């Protein structure tokens, strides 16, 4: 390994270290530091047979060409299968085993949460910051409240029109609320709108926080299918009282309540955050 641009009287390792450090440390958000002359000479042979499941294509070496030229591309367009006209992912990755392709599709499907109205919503799409989403949600609520309060004010005249088409009911926001569990220092966030009911929510939380009974644990796509089936049919321990923990929430007034007492939609509008509380500590909360 040789630091071409450095040279000088210092040892090779010094310039390499400082060059490496220079890459990650800089005084401003600038683009890549000067790379010319750096030759990694990896000569790696990645993706050869053996090891990983069913990967073909022979070994492809990589060299990092020096003197600022483009990185050597041992693989060219010819090495890749020509993209098919259909956009199915399975045909373009012949080297992956079928199971993993199916799993891949499943995996993508799983990142699609089912929203309250049944339509699919993908986590992370559209790319709007949570901060902005929450502001918009609160906005819709404030205006709806304003609409109810005022009879004939300018506020109403100018805003009701705007929200006529996308009133509160259609606002399928992504409400992430914090969840903490007694005894666990790290909290999590859960998207309430991705669940249609208390049962579904509780099951998600159980998966996140509590140990679920170890299943047979087959690998591959069947595991994922079983998983989904399991989640759909399982009863929640948090809700039926058989766990050591109960699910509670803090509402807009700052009071802590047991989850499950009010209709789901009402819960959605008043919940601020969730807490998985030890049963012993949950005395004094409104009984179910």
């Amino acid at each position: 390994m040789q630091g071409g641009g450095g040279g000088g009287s210092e040892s090779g390792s010094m310039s390499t270290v400082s060059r490496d450090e220079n890459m990650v440390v800089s005084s401003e958000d600038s683009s890549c530091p000067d790379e010319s002359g750096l030759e990694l000479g990896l000569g790696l042979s990645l993706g050869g047979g053996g090891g990983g499941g069913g990967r073909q294509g022979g070994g492809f070496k990589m060299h990092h060409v020096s003197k600022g030229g483009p990185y050597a591309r041992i693989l060219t367009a010819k090495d890749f299968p020509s993209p098919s006209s259909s956009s199915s992912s399975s045909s373009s990755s012949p080297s992956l085993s079928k199971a993993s392709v199916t799993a891949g599709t499943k995996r993508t499907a799983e990142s699609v949460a089912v929203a309250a109205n049944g339509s699919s919503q993908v986590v992370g799409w559209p790319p709007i910051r949570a901060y902005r989403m929450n502001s918009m949600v609160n906005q819709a609520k404030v205006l709806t409240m304003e609409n109810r309060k005022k009879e004939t004010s300018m506020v109403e005249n100018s805003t009701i029109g705007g929200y006529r088409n996308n009133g509160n009911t259609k606002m399928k926001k992504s409400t992430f609320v914090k969840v903490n569990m007694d005894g666990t220092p790290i909290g999590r966030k859960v998207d309430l709108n991705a669940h249609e009911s208390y049962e579904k929510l509780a099951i998600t939380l159980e998966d996140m926080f509590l140990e679920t009974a170890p299943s047979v644990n087959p690998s591959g796509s069947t595991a994922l299918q079983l998983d989904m089936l399991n989640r759909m049919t399982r009863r929640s321990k948090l809700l039926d009282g058989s766990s050591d923990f109960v699910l509670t929430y803090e509402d807009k007034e700052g009071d802590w309540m047991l989850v499950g007492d009010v209709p789901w939609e009402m819960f959605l509008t008043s919940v601020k955050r969730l807490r998985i509380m030890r049963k012993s500590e949950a005395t004094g909360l409104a009984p179910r």
Partner: protein
Amino acid sequence: MQKKTAYSFPDEILEHVFSFIHSGKDRNAASVVCKSWYEIERWCRRKIFVGNCYAVSPTMVIRRFPDIRSIELKGKPHFADFNLVPDGWGGYVLPWISEMAGAYPWLEEIRLKRMVVTDESLELVAKSFTNLQVLVLFSCEGFSTDGLAAIAASCKNLRELDLRDSEVDDLSGHWLNHFPDTYTSLVSLNISCLGSDDVSFSALERLVGRCPNLRRLLLNREVPLDKIANLLSRAPQLIEFGTGTYAAELRSDVYSNLAEAFCNCKELKCLSGFWDAVPAYLPVIYSVCSRLTSLNLSYAPIQNPDLTKLVSQCPSLQRMLVLDYIEDSGLEVLASSCKDLQELRVFPSDPFGEEPNVSLTEKGLVAVSSGCPKLQSVLYFCRQMSNAALVTIAQNCPNFTRFRLCLLDPKIADYRTLQPLDVGFGAIVEHCKDLRRLSLSGLLTDRVFEYIGMHAKKLEMLSVAFAGESDLALHHVLSGCESLRKLEIMNCPFGDKALLANAAKLETMRSLWMSSCSVSLGACKMLGQKMPRLNIEVMDEKGPPDSRAESDPVDKLYIYRSVAGPRFDMPPFVWTMDEDFASELS
């Protein structure tokens, strides 16, 4: 003796020369010229930017740079903004603060982005850095107003406190009271993210009143409109102001007080806030409009004609953030009125609605591209696009540095030809030679990535979702984009091949994020084994990767270069693929 070099420039002179070099790139270059330059440079470097807090350890930074006065750190990957990074992933600032507390007692500036900042960290900052002047917590979380109280109480030299977009636990609005009465140095205060109903307004008023150098004040939503006039009258020297909620019953006294207060702010150039804004109170800012260079109405549910009327009064605008209520018609007015416009961001008012609620299409963006010759930076959410429009936009604006287009339906085709949008985005990268940041959306095949690899030579950050058909796409980007630093990909059919073939490229980038793609566990392990200077992090909330087959795709993958080695503060659902991991299981 001839051997002894006559080159014995005194260190002090070199140090003086270096003091004029501010750019990190230049300093880095100087530091590798020779050993003495390395030594001199490291002693006199004052400002450090660490784009990934896990790329280097605080110990290493401190060892090399003994006297830093200003540090900027970034933690979580960008997609954390969209809830793609599970809570607890990492990005803790405490280890940095703890070590810097001893090493940099003269630290003046701390800027953090997407990091977990606890009250403990803030208390340590307050205690350790008596000379702290700037504290910026951009999109951070994990702290409460208690931590802020500690800062307010101790940091006598604080000039700038900016909590931009952070998530703060509001325990008490009285943290503002902790600024002592003798404290008068505030220049910039951004508390727009605070939600508490009782940000003590009287404390805020007194604070504003006694800080004559206050130039930037961004309030939180809870500050009612009728209190603004009073506040502004105490700070007529403000350059940038963010209102709180901008809705109230129309009252003539409130109205006229506001109008007068704004009128007296002769230096006001930037306005924001406007939550829940009602048209009735918009005219109070008319006196300021002609001077405005930056206007953020992206939280204001104002619609046309009020919205367009307001915009038409701001000919000096350089930066405009707005909701899609502006519609194509409003953007046409913007295009004809605001010839200095450099940055435009249009956000969706109803992102999840199935039907468009406003008439905002590609035409608005075309109009602005045509009318505003200085346009450089665009973030545009809309529901339809055509290749023709994108080509026109590209030809109109060859100076684009940032272009982010978000079509709400992520795989939508050109609405006129039903073709993929490859050609349109291709035109963007071909014409805009200085493009540094690009976000794609819409129906896209491998083609667009071929164009990107071919043309986008200055591209530093690329965001991709639901695009491409095969590994070839990823290969084009990794092999062609010479300046690429950050690549983030979600829900694309990219697997192992491109990644493995371009593994060396990853060491030249800050980071790569891939979620809901088809990269197999086996490939991750292989990368982890072969590339010791990369951290390969696999995130899977369902269970440890070893319970799955090698060919199973990983849920989330985050790869970043690091000289610090693997980290040890990972939560249970994140695994680092390194030599140890691979060998344990084989």
